[in-house]
């Protein structure tokens, strides 16, 4: 649940809403690199949870594990009343229908047009007629603010349009849970605000539980109901306010580094070892 000394107070706060995703004692390593070392946390139903942490801290891997794309070495993941890690191939395939995922790079099929990409889940899993599909997809495009992109290929979209198209595809089957991997990376500040509003609006409109990873502190503080902080293979989780005022030195240094001070921000990028243009900054 929570790794901080003031764990009891965090527990009280996160248990007010029932958990939709509950992770117990997750362990995972690739070779001799440990990614999760007894990670436990819970994601409340219908809320937006932002997963923070250093580059390489395992944020994407956590989402992939929840989506059953990555098998952990140890531990349980409960989604509703289903245990995810012990599922077989076919069960996992069924299970994923309840989950939408927005990948960092969009992951649209580049041989299909945007329209065909977004309508693909409908064609595969529903018995809708062509007219119904067209109507549903157009409705979805309007919801995410995409216009005149039907016949474009994914390679012809800008970064922001790609994110919108990915969100449209992830939401088209009305999933219970939406996983977003870095929805703001590579976007300008204005586009960050737009996608941010889009996600919050989607959450309020449909009541979908949203788990997203981000490096973007500003938007995290604005939109998150709960924050999960990955450090050293474990998770510190709590409501946004509590994380903001946390005394844990690891959280404090992360918050300080991503604050308004441009110099310390620069240092963070240097430390992370990633080219700067890959990260977003407002």
């Amino acid at each position, binding site marked *: 649940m929570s790794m901080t000394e003031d764990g009891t107070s965090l527990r009280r706060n996160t248990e007010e809403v029932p958990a939709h995703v509950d992770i117990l004692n997750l362990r995972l390593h690739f070779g001799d690199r440990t990614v999760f070392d007894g990670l436990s946390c819970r994601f409340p139903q219908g809320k937006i949870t932002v997963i923070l942490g250093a580059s390489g801290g395992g944020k994407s891997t956590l989402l992939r594990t929840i989506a059953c794309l990555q098998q952990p070495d140890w531990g349980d993941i409960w989604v509703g009343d289903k245990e995810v890690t012990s599922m077989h191939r076919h069960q996992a395939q*069924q299970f994923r229908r309840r989950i939408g995922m927005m990948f960092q790079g969009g992951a649209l099929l580049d041989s299909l047009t945007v329209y065909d990409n977004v309508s693909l889940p409908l064609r*595969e899993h529903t018995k809708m007629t062509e007219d119904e599909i067209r109507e549903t997809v157009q409705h979805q495009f309007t919801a995410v603010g995409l216009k005149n992109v039907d016949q474009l290929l994914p390679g012809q979209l800008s970064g922001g349009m790609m994110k919108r198209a990915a969100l449209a595809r992830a939401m088209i089957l009305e999933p219970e849970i939406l996983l977003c991997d870095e929805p703001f990376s590579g976007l300008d500040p204005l586009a960050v605000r737009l996608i941010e509003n889009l996600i919050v609006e989607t959450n309020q409109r449909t009541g979908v539980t949203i788990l997203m990873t981000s490096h973007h502190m500003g938007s995290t503080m604005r939109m998150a109901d709960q924050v999960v902080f990955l450090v050293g293979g474990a998770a510190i989780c709590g409501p946004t306010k509590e994380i903001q005022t946390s005394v844990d030195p690891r959280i404090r240094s992360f918050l300080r580094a991503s604050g308004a001070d441009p110099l310390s921000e620069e240092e963070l990028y240097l430390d992370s070892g990633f080219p700067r243009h890959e990260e977003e900054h407002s």
Partner: protein
Amino acid sequence: MFRSHVEKLGGRTIAGISRLGQFTTFAGVLLDCLITRPFRGRRLIDEVYTIGVLSLVIVCISGGAVGMVLGLQGYTVLTRFGAEEALGSFVGLTLIRELGPVLTALLVTGRAGSAIAAEIGAMVATEQLDGLRMMSIDPTHYVAAPKAAAMVLTMPLLSALFIVCGIGGGYVVGVQFLGIDPGSYLKGLEGSIKFSDDVMGSITKSLVFGILVGMISTYRGYTSAPNAAGVSAATTGTVVVASVLTLIVDYIITALWGV
């Protein structure tokens, strides 16, 4: 020193065997995908078209060139025995029984097989396959199976095309350049080729090669590492493994069934 060599050898052997097991599992899943619904006819036709279009020109040109060389070489050899009239059956039988299926398989591997591995590898690298999984669509069913099936269907057709072009090339050299009687060229061709033996054997061979190339190229793409180096390794790996296996399997089929 000696021990470390033994250890390395053991490690390689185990890795090789586990790779083989992985491949067999993949082949099983692929077969399972071919018989489970929904049947992806549209995807299959698209893939047949792509593989066919990719390989059509090189198969025709190579077939013609090989046929012309066979015409020249065959003429030189046959005149030593005073049997130039047999040029038609020489060119036809060589192409149908052996060179047609084998060279087509090698050409298609280099052109379409490598393209399949690269395409699937790039889809792995850009998380498109995971994207499909998250839509509850089995990527083996949607991406790999239609490509492999298309390869099996296209291979005999391309091989037939290769053979026709080759026979044409032999005709041009033999009849137009070297002055063999056209009647005897065609007569020899017609008289010596048995449908049940030569042609069926040829079709069998190219079907087997199609299965081989289809499986290897999709498998290598599917299991490639998710980065640019992984894609390039999958591509070259496909060409090398499929080409060598084609030649070995060709010998085995010929030795066992004499086709």
